[in-house]
């Protein structure tokens, strides 16, 4: 049944705020890395901003979001506080994880970000556990787990989808299909016509949507999240999107053809969304600029906070290995 509800203006502007915050963060992180002020492998989500921004507009604060090393968009959309977020990227003691996890393991429990994983596919089995616990505690929480097209080929994906289906768990498996698994184009690595086709194989509801279209993404997310919350079980949600900055910063993108890149640039969802919001009367130029400026200011405050924060003391190596301090 087609649901004709659409996101209202307030929702759209919230989505826009998150999407532009993500882009601001991405641009700024890259500047900081090139200036030598952050030393870390960096996985840019540029091009995928709308996916989590639209998804998060349908989530409760206490819903769980799991993501991966290419996860700043998912984390920012979920509402992670900026200062400890940036500080963690800089390896400071004031980071979300005291500098001990770094960008690939950003965690902020209060924001509903209980785990970020650096191993492809590993978040999916973990999502099942969070969802199982939510059922036992009767909290109504939904668990959203994000991963890429590449992850849909690893064993953990298959085991997790099957189990979620058999146990009817409140999980939304969001495959952010950006067309490339590291340097391997979709067609050269994936046997399925489309990732959503795999839903049938697991007896699961499947949705495919254009992840770069705000209304489509919002609607698809709403459908999947409501199903989970209403006890209708898991959904495999394939959101088609694109990533502009390669797998890892430093990647020269030689494996992406010029035609594909040019087409993607022409279809960049961010300027498209900006124009559309104004055309549809949801916002004026001034309102959008105010949102963008506000994001830049807040992010800059977080950057300065991070740069001025201390590094963790070496004694932190002995802490948080076990419940008691190490001495094993």
């Amino acid at each position, binding site marked *: 049944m087609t649901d004709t509800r659409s996101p209202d203006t307030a929702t759209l502007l919230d989505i826009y705020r998150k999407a532009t915050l993500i882009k601001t963060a991405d641009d700024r992180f890259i500047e900081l*890395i*090139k200036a030598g002020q952050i030393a870390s492998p960096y996985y840019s989500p540029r091009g995928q901003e709308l996916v989590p921004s639209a998804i998060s507009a349908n989530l409760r604060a206490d819903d769980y979001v799991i993501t991966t090393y290419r996860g700043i968009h998912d984390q920012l959309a979920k509402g992670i506080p900026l200062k400890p977020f940036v500080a963690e990227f800089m390896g400071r003691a004031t980071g979300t994880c005291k500098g001990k996890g770094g960008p690939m393991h950003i965690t902020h429990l209060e924001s509903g970000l209980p785990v970020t994983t650096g191993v492809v596919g590993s978040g999916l089995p973990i999502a099942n556990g969070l969802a199982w616990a939510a059922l036992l505690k009767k909290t109504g929480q939904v668990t959203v787990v994000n991963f890429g097209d590449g992850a849909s080929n690893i064993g953990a994906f298959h085991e997790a989808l099957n189990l979620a289906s058999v146990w009817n768990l409140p999980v939304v498996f969001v495959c952010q299909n950006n067309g490339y698994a590291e340097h391997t184009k979709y067609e050269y690595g994936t046997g399925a016509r489309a990732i959503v086709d795999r839903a049938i194989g697991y007896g699961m509801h499947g949705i495919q949507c254009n992840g770069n279209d705000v209304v489509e993404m919002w609607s698809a997310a709403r459908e999947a999240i409501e199903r989970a919350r209403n006890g209708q079980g898991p959904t495999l949600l394939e959101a088609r999107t694109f990533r502009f900055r390669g797998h890892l910063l430093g990647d020269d993108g030689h494996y992406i053809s010029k035609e594909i890149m040019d087409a993607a640039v022409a279809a960049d969802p961010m300027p498209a969304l900006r124009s559309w919001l104004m055309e549809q009367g949801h916002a004026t130029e001034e309102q959008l600029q105010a949102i963008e400026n506000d994001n830049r200011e807040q992010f800059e405050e977080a950057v300065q906070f991070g740069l001025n924060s201390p590094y963790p003391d070496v004694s932190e190596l002995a802490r948080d290995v076990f419940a008691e301090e190490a001495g094993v």
Partner: protein
Amino acid sequence: MATEILLPKLGFSVNEALLTEWLVADGATVSKGDILYALESEKSVQEIEAPADGTLRILKEAGETYDVGTVIGELL
């Protein structure tokens, strides 16, 4: 106040990179964001932008490999 130009980490297992060439002359004035130098690491050659406005003072010669974090120049 001078801004140090630090050699960045661009790549996964990179701890050093080749400063292939300075794309601006020593003593030239640059604006933040202008392309300053070219860096070759693990997988690619990247062009790196100036982190601030200023007059460039080159401290390390092109054609050599330096550790990540090396101060290769300053913007005064």
